[in-house]
């Protein structure tokens, strides 16, 4: 039976010049295992996403996709959710909930199944996947490979008839990838599930596929059995040819006449043995240039011992390493062994407890993290690169020249206007390297620089790195990609037991290893000597090799590393701003500050308990003065742009009015029936009544999944900023972030984010009687921010944000939380009592207020910009 039939499908993204899919015709039968491959950007992911309606990107589409004989967009969404399983690339981002069992149950909960059925199905699934021992775990305790298996299991639990996988193993290490693929094979063979998988690393999946579909430039260029695909790729001179598994590739280049092409190492060895039987082998002298021992190493690690905690095991134990100018060292080894830690120690991020890292003071060391996205901070690639140069003493033109050179070298010069997150994986990696190069590094520490990249990007990055080393840099790279290391590294080492073992040139290293070595070596062991790459085998067989490793623009590199040219003419001069309103602002600030100091009794002004009230009024007036002078000064200040989220219904008025009705009633009941004695009870009741409408509305309203996810993300970020992020004690950006969320996502979401932040962070810290108070207070702050900034009541300038931040921290948060401590201990809330508690808490409130204001002043603009971009990308705004 035909599961999928794609007829004349074309697709183009909005505002794209070229179509992403061009006239695709494809049919997939039941039980087939189909692999779609191609370089990144060839349209394979776009094609997969056309197969399920809920995942289709926006854009113009023509042609039809039939699922089980019916156009897929006419198939019920619920039926699609069950029958079409979809697994994505990232192990981390697909899981929704925090616990393994909950993640498994998530899809079934969506179907509205009862507890009993879900229990049985999760038990069954856990047994099939052999994951029953993790069920109780948190997802963040799992390794990347385990996470991806969980993602697969939570899709399989829906009992789909077809399983679609979009590069599921590209982020996994070789062992995890093998395990994942063997489970996939099991599913295909034992359950008869149809599998459609796309990948650009062919090694794992190629041999178990029934069919290989090769795409290039939005077209299908080949659709045949794995054996035939190799020959076709060879003949059409496709770059994908060099991504084929080594046995297949070597066979196709050397023989392609005797029988079917070998797809795995076993059959490859059989073929190679018979092929070389009567042939004379070419021998190459692998002359190795050992490093001159007298040369001083650029980086030296001497007997380094490291552990993360006093009680945890050693990650590094007596590690020694000497790295010299002009060489590229590869560190290979098992997952989670501590290779990344090694780089962090070399970069000086952690200090070893015994031993030391010796690097010359004048040398610049940089670190490329596993995910290059960790380096990006700005909204366009150009600004992001420029950011590195921001504190450099060089004129603008010189900086632009540097950016131009670096981006040309890395092949990203056409992408400078793009947002870093809109780039492909390979482009992001190159952009990250470009960013590092702007600091003119002498030592580059690279963590998995080619992970998940296609063969083209790998070659490009290999070439850049080679050129860098040739220019005198020292590169230490951690990688799982043995073929890449064999081809580009000068020395390789195996990380094991906290040490580096067998450090030597790639030929010696990989030919001495038997298991942990390249595919070419495993294929040619005992047949050819010292062949560790496919090229080595081909050389031995007498084939000429045209490919060159060396390359890169050395001239350009020299320019990049040249010292900056001072250019006198180019000095930028600031325009003179009008000074009346800034002056007013400054005066208001000063008055504000003085009144704050007076309230704190730091300033010995004419005393008087009652006079404090005047000071308070002065404080408020000066705050207003700041806002007004800022308003007038707005010509110069840009307003931060915020677009309104489209809601199906707005319930703000409803929740507001219900609050306005219930609170007076509660107070009335409190006064007349409880004789006003139980403040605690009444205040708790009021808070509950305030919060309930918001939660009720949240529960009932139709909400798009993306909005829900965005709310969860903002909450989690706020929790994080409370729990793990502070620059100084008590200097946390949480309140600022709640205010920003309210402004960008609307008043209701603002309330929800504020109150959920407090609830969830108390799950992490500690719940206490203060939880409802904090939830209420933060909720109100988020709500007000949504009302004031979201609806444009106040100007959305940096200053008005920070003034609002200060006031809401000092007056709302402090004003409610300080007296709350009193009410919680049953102390009568008289004016005097309230004042006493408020003043006692005031210094803390002040720090809170200042930190919120400072954070908003610096952060409101960039953070809201990022939020706005995501809102647009998510389709939350018109």
């Amino acid at each position, binding site marked *: 039976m035909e599961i999928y039939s794609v007829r004349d499908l074309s697709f183009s993204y909005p505002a794209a010049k070229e179509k992403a899919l061009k006239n695709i015709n494809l049919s997939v039968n039941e039980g087939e295992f189909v692999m779609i491959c191609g370089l990144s950007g060839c349209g394979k992911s776009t094609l997969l996403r056309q197969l399920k309606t*809920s*995942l289709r990107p926006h854009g113009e589409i023509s042609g039809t996709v039939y699922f089980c004989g019916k156009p897929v967009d006419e198939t019920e969404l*619920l039926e699609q*959710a069950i029958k079409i399983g979809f697994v994505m690339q990232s192990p981390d981002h697909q899981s*929704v*909930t*925090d616990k393994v069992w909950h993640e498994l149950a*998530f899809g079934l*909960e*969506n179907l509205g199944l*009862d507890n009993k059925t879900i229990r049985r199905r999760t038990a069954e699934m856990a047994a099939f996947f052999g994951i029953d021992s993790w069920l109780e775990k948190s997802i*963040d305790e799992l390794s990347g490979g385990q996470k991806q298996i969980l*993602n697969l299991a939570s899709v399989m639990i*829906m009992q789909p008839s077809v399983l679609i996988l979009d590069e599921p193993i590209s982020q996994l290490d070789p062992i995890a990838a093998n395990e994942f693929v063997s489970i996939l094979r099991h599913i295909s063979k034992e359950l008869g599930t149809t599998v459609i998988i796309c990948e650009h690393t062919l090694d794992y999946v190629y041999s178990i596929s029934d069919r290989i579909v090769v795409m290039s430039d939005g077209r299908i260029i080949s659709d045949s059995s794995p054996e035939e695909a190799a020959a076709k790729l060879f003949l059409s001179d496709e770059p994908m040819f060099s991504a084929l598994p080594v046995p297949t590739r070597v066979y196709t280049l050397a023989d392609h006449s005797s029988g079917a092409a070998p797809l795995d190492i076993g059959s490859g060895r059989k073929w190679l043995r018979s092929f070389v039987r009567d042939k004379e082998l070419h021998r190459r002298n692998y002359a190795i240039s050992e490093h001159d021992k007298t040369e001083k190493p650029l980086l030296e690690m001497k007997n380094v011992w490291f552990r993360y905690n006093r009680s945890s095991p050693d990650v590094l134990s007596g590690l020694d390493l000497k790295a010299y100018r002009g060489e590229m060292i590869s560190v290979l080894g098992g997952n989670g062994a501590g290779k990344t830690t090694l780089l962090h120690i070399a970069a*000086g*991020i952690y200090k070893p407890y015994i031993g030391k890292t010796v690097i010359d003071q004048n040398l610049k060391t940089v670190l490329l*993290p*596993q995910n290059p*996205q*960790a*380096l*990006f*901070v700005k909204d366009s690639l150009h600004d992001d690169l420029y950011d590195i140069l921001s504190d450099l003493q060089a004129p603008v033109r010189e900086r632009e020249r540097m950016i131009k050179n670096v981006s040309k070298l890395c092949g990203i010069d056409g992408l400078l206007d793009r947002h870093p997150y809109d780039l492909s994986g390979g482009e992001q990696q190159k952009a990250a390297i470009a960013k590092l190069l702007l600091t003119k590094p002498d030592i580059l520490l690279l963590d998995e620089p080619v992970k998940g990249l296609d063969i083209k990007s790998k070659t490009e990055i290999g070439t850049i790195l080679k050129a860098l080393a040739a220019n005198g840099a020292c590169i230490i790279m951690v990688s799982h990609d043995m073929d890449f290391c064999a081809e580009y590294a000068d020395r390789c080492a195996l990380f094991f037991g906290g040490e580096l073992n067998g450090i030597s040139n790639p030929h010696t290293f990989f030919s001495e290893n038997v298991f942990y070595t390249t595919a070419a070596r495993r294929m040619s062991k005992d047949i050819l000597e010292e062949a560790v790459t496919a090229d080595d085998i081909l050389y031995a067989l007498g084939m000429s090799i045209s490919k060159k490793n060396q390359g890169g623009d050395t001239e350009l590199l020299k320019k990049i590393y040249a010292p900056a040219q001072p250019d006198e003419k180019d000095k930028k001069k600031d325009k003179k701003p009008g000074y009346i309103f800034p002056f007013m602002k400054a005066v208001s600030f000063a008055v504000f500050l003085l009144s704050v100091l007076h309230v704190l009794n730091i300033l010995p002004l004419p005393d008087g308990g009652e006079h404090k009230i005047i000071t308070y009024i002065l404080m408020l007036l000066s705050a207003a003065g700041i806002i007004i002078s800022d308003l007038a000064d707005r010509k110069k200040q840009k307003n931060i742009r915020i677009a309104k989220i489209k809601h199906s219904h707005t319930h703000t008025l409803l929740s507001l009015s219900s609050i306005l009705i219930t609170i007076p009633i509660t107070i009335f009941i409190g006064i007349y029936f409880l004789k006003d004695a139980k403040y605690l009870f009444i205040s708790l009741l009021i808070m509950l009544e305030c919060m309930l409408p918001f*939660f009720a509305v*949240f529960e009932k309203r139709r909400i798009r*999944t*993306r909005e*829900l*996810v*965005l*709310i*969860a*993300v903002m*909450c*989690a*970020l706020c*929790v*994080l*900023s409370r729990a793990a*992020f502070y620059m100084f004690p008590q200097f946390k950006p949480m309140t600022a972030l709640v205010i920003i969320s309210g402004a960008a996502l609307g008043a209701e979401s603002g309330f929800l984010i504020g109150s*959920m932040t407090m609830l*969830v962070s108390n*799950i992490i810290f*500690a719940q206490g*009687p203060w939880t409802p108070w904090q939830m209420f207070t933060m909720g109100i702050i988020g709500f007000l921010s949504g009302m004031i900034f979201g609806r444009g009541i106040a100007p959305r300038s940096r200053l008005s944000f920070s003034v609002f931040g200060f006031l809401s921290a000092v007056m709302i948060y402090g004003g409610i939380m300080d007296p709350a*401590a009193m009410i919680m*201990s*049953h*102390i*009568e809330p008289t004016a005097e009592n309230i004042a*006493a508690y408020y003043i*006692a808490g005031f210094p803390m409130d002040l720090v809170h207020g200042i930190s919120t204001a*400072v*954070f908003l002043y*610096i*952060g409101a603009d*960039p*953070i809201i910009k*990022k939020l706005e971009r*995501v809102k647009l990308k998510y389709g939350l705004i018109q």
Partner: protein
Amino acid sequence: MKNGFNTYHPISQFLFFASVISFTMFIMHPIILLISLAAGSLYVVFTGGISGYLNTLRLTLPTSLMIILINPLVSHGGITILSYLPDGNPFTLESVIFGIAAALLMSCTLKWFYAVNGIFTSDRVIYLFGRLSPRTALLISMILRFFSKFKAQLRIVRAAQQTLVREGSKGNMIRRIKNGVKIFSSMLQWAMENSIDTADSMNSRGYGLHKRTSYSVFKIKPSDILFIITVLAFDIYILAAYIYGAAEYSYYPMFDISFFDLYTVGIYTAFLILCFMPFIIDVREAGKWKSIRSGI
């Protein structure tokens, strides 16, 4: 222990803690407070050891001291005047005693909340919310997942940005804040851009197409039902006696000295048994388990 109080159903546990904590907080009666403090402290030591107890002490002492100090300074009720304050207001014994009682109340609730935090793991909180609002429960679960993911990413971004910072510009305070904002905004961008995958994965698995159910791994066992009935019975008794006025205690204008009469002793006993119920369960289960294990 296989069936200790910490394995009971979240509803049983919630009912217990809600009862004990609200009685402690609303009936601000010295004897009730003392019972609650004794049981709460015992529970903290029982679950968290001495170090756990010291932890709660570290949290409560400053607040308690503040309450004890502030109260007599601002509250001047009571008839037993000990002396006069500089501002001419009386300094009374009653307000001192009330301050002590308020501080006691504070430390009682914190002790119980320590126990709550030990027992109410995130999935129990999520379960309880799931009864009221399934969407909020899902939201909590998602926030917790995102939180641990973001925390790991924050570490990565920090490490990555650290080597990019130019030497010599590290110490400056404004620069440090700016750098902090930069790290955070990189983190934020990563979080938001990648969460689109999460939304897609939810949609792909049918989120929002049908009325959702909330799956839970918790089952109500007969012991839970027995427990709930017992707690409710005590609750009703104590509540009835409280409304009748049996646990009325006045600190002002003069604190009562008569603590014991027929009604109040009834309330004390009921509250005492209620507070110690988890211990009774745990001790009995420990004994049972010991005898079962010796038979293996």
